[in-house]
């Protein structure tokens, strides 16, 4: 029997889960990154400290360790499994940990994007009586956003790859399913090759879509 054809549904199910975790993490990482970036640029010192601590902690420890610590370590001292449910907690914790980790990098991307906007733009907005929120929302962020697209797409690609680290903490996704299939079929070479190809298609289409988006924005608005 052809091990690939026979197990393709299982692997595609894994791919579906990988895409789900990726989408959730990419959305959350942007939301978290935006909030933390604004905190890092805030005039309120405690907000800056909290955001800086968050970024440094998540960037200076391995994602795999973070996942083990929160998904498997935390239940050892807190009844989180009872609070959230035996099955839900690991999934929830893994998704959030992944998002927080990627969010730390996104924070720096967004912060740099905001700081890259010419100071005069902000002053002009202030001079026509815009408040801080309006200045950010209508003047600074739209200009920052365009220069943030390429690094954000990079980070999104990284996030897709990083979902593979959910397998070691027992979360079912593409790699996890792949390991199950290999344990049954011993078709190590074929299955890992197929898994790599699936990731490649996913990430390659993302970057193609991103460059299309970038070209569109270039034409519509400058």
């Amino acid at each position, binding site marked *: 029997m052809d091990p690939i054809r026979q197990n393709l549904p299982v692997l595609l199910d894994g791919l579906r889960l990988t895409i789900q975790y990726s989408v959730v993490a990419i959305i959350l990482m942007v939301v978290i990154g935006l909030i933390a970036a604004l905190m890092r640029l805030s005039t309120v010192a405690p907000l800056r400290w909290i955001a800086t601590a968050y970024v440094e902690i998540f960037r200076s420890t391995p994602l795999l360790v973070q996942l083990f610590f929160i998904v498997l370590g935390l239940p050892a001292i807190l009844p989180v499994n009872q609070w959230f449910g035996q099955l839900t907690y690991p999934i929830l914790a893994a998704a959030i940990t992944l998002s927080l980790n990627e969010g730390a990098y996104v924070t720096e991307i967004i912060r740099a994007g905001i700081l890259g906007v010419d100071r*005069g733009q902000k002053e*002009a907005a202030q*001079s026509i*009586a815009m408040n801080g929120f*309006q200045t950010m929302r209508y003047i600074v962020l739209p200009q920052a956003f365009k220069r943030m697209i390429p690094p954000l797409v990079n980070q999104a690609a990284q996030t897709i790859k990083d979902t593979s680290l959910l397998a070691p903490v027992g979360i079912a996704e593409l790699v996890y399913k792949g390991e199950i299939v290999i344990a049954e079929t011993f078709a190590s070479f074929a299955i890992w090759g197929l898994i790599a190809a699936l990731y490649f298609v996913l990430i390659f289409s993302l970057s193609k879509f991103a460059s299309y988006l970038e070209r569109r924005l270039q034409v519509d608005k*400058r």
Partner: protein
Amino acid sequence: MINVKDLHKSFGHNEILKGISTHVEEKEVVVVIGPSGSGKSTFLRCLNGLETATSGEIEIAGMTLTDPKTNIHTLRQHVGMVFQQFNLFKHLTILENVTIGPRKVKKVAQAQADKVARELLAKVGLVGKEASYPDELSGGQQQRVAIARSLAMGPNVMLFDEPTSALDPEMVGEVLQVMKTLAIEGMTMVVVTHEMGFAREVGHRVIFMDDGLIVEEGAPKSLFSDPQKDRTKGFLAKIL
């Protein structure tokens, strides 16, 4: 319209404004001159709260800027500012540059904001450029849009910080012409500039600043032809 009492401004230990006191009447056009680094921009930026005064009192457009209870955003609706580098919003069209303040800050309906913006753009001589983006315009055109953008907020006072210094010489005139029209219409204006022709022709009063202080002030004619202080004489000798 503007009343400044003993205004001090320091950046760290560096005192830039060392006690400025002056008064600007409604419809008066005051031209501020002085050597580079004398604090002209800092003075102007204090007048709309882009810089916070270290001490002293500023009353402008009927509000006390230096009172912490004053809402700075309300105050800025009445105080327009034009920058040396134009600072047009690069991601917005010319029309949007002019309408975004009224629409987002004053919550004016789009149709009404568009109408006013078109009138203002016509006034500064930019009909037909509504859909362009700032980087498609010449410096002189951009600066005229910047003036229209400020006017769209309906200010009582306009501040100009070297509005023609970043322009090619052939574009200086068109911007000065717009400013002159504004002055004739009765706008209260404080203008930092090196354009002595403009100061002489349009200015009601010239303030000479040096080293964070007002050294001398007076009507353009008398100040230019008969300066009293040595520092004023020295400065005028260099630029006239």
